[in-house]
């Protein structure tokens, strides 16, 4: 099978912060390419720059220099407002601590990103129900986060990430706050999303077992890619 077209292209990206008079280089001329439909894991020690890289790819931050392309969009040149609109349509986020709004039900949390898109109430409802059905929470529509287990809350988070049918899903330590069984369920679900919906997933993790679910793992150190592991489809997921 021919290799899929790259959906994410990071070209010579530098990112530095200043701490007082000191300059801290977090990413140093990093380049990478992620094909459409790949499940990619980013690993590395604390301070290696993996979350910064995730922020740049997800349009949460802009590089000091270099380019970030997602599909045909050069997001590294977009303004904050343009990025906000772009994120709504193109990126789904899965967080370690779920970050659901406590006052909203599962249904309303999933509906949240759709409020920013122009669509009818009927279409919005259909999408929310489909997303919650995909993560197996059709029977928990009207539960608030406080009434759900950690694994169920993360499922709601995943439903919120996919409800806009984004090009890209980014996950920051999605199993970091879960027990082993729930973590395994979540990784399995993410694998299914990648395979069946052909979603491109980029996941930051410290957990080697979680990284084993990805088709490829990139190791970062001091802002540079230092190692790459590829797995066969049989071992991944």
């Amino acid at each position, binding site marked *: 099978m021919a290799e899929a077209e790259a959906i994410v292209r990071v070209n010579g990206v530098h990112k530095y912060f200043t701490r007082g008079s000191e300059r801290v280089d977090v990413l140093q001329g990093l380049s990478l390419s992620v094909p459409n439909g790949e499940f990619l894991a980013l690993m590395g020690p604390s301070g290696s720059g993996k979350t910064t890289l995730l*922020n740049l790819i997800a349009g*949460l*931050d802009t590089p000091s220099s270099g380019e970030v392309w997602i599909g045909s969009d050069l997001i590294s040149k977009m303004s*904050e*407002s343009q990025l906000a609109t772009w994120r*709504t349509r193109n990126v789904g986020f899965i967080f370690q601590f779920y*970050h659901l709004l406590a006052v909203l039900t599962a249904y309303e949390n999933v509906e*949240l*990103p759709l409020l920013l898109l122009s669509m009818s109430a009927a279409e919005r409802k259909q999408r929310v129900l489909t997303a919650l059905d995909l993560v197996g929470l059709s029977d928990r529509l009207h539960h608030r986060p406080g009434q759900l287990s950690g694994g169920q809350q993360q499922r709601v988070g995943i439903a919120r990430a996919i409800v806009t049918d984004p090009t890209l899903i980014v996950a920051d330590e999605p199993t970091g706050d879960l027990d082993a069984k729930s973590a395994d369920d979540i990784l399995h679900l993410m694998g299914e999303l990648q395979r069946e919906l052909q979603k491109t997933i980029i996941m930051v993790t410290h957990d080697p077992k979680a990284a084993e679910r990805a088709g490829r793992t990139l190791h970062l150190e001091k802002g540079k890619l230092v190692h790459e592991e590829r797995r066969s489809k049989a071992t991944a997921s």
Partner: protein
Amino acid sequence: MFQLTRLIIKNLRRNVLRTVLTALGTMVLVLAVTSVWSVLDFIDNQTADKANDFKILISDKNNAQGRLPRSYMESMRRGAARGSDDVVPDDYMTWAFYGGTLDPTKSSRENFLFLIACEPEKAPTMLDDLDQLGTADTARLNAAIEKMRKQPNGIIMGHEQLKLMNKEVGGRITVNGLTFKGLNLEFEIVDTFPKSAQRYGQTSIMNIEYLFQGIDEYDAKNKTKLASGVAPIAFEMLKVKNRQDYERLAAQIVNSPLYTSPAVRCESGGSAVSTFLASWKDIFWGMRWLLSPAILVTLSLVIANAISISVRERHQEIAVLKVLGFRPGQVMFLILGEAMLIGMVSGLISAGFTILFVNKFVGGIPIPIAWFDRFFIPQVALLWGLGIGGVTAFLGSILPAWSARGVRVADVFAKVT
């Protein structure tokens, strides 16, 4: 917009106790400022002249407490007009004030009666607001005036005054004069002012001719003139169509050779009230420029405090909203919306409650300034409550909302400790 508003309402449920306390704080302060503004609004209305039906008050020029002799009365009622070119007033009313006590040994409030001595038939047209009564109340007032005309010692008493004195319509009372010391008069209460004329709840009127008759009888009986009876008239009130007529009439009277001892001055109704209220000027100034702003600033700070805490607690949640695509302006809208919703709803409820409580339950704010005695909350206070709540909430929450707007999206990955 509807969905965002729904989100705002749901956010207010996040910390119900804080929302309720903020709302209660807002309500109390709106109640305070609404009450203060009601008094000021009433005073403003009293001191503002109407564009039409100008009222002129003619009183002693050199002595605010001075009174005018009876000899001035007839010519003044005609505006001192002598030629056919002179302005003649459309209406008139002569005012004297007779106050006294029912029991000279016990000077308590329920024993004290203050009467406006006037021509009773002039009350419906010359006393403010009595021309605004409904048909039934107007008929009742006219019937009471007719009784006074037939029965010179008849008085119409405010219903609150009647209740305070524990008297009934038809009852007879003897008043021991204080404003006309030594002149004791007997009255019969022929009726009360209609309750719809709220401002006359504590006002009573008597026939001025009965006062003059009493003075004459005193003089005849005692073979000496009652000192306060020599000049018993407080002021003459005339009504003209407009300001132009007012100015001409004022010139006519002031320049008339009929009024030299004492000389007289003319003031518009509003100006006369302002003069009368001069001794309360500092209090009104303080209420308007110190008390009201202080309450409004306090209200803004209460809301600012609550919203600041809320924004600080939800820092990461706001970052999540921005990650999901909410733009800075939408985040600001959410925060401002929460504050303004609390402020406006609380303000409206508070104003509504204040109107009901003060006007219906308490029967007015009892601040005895001049002859006003108590103040009522106008219906427009509903708009004040809405506006005060909304504006102070907006001002109080603008800085917290601005800081929420500036939350960095990358903060969403800040680790929870």
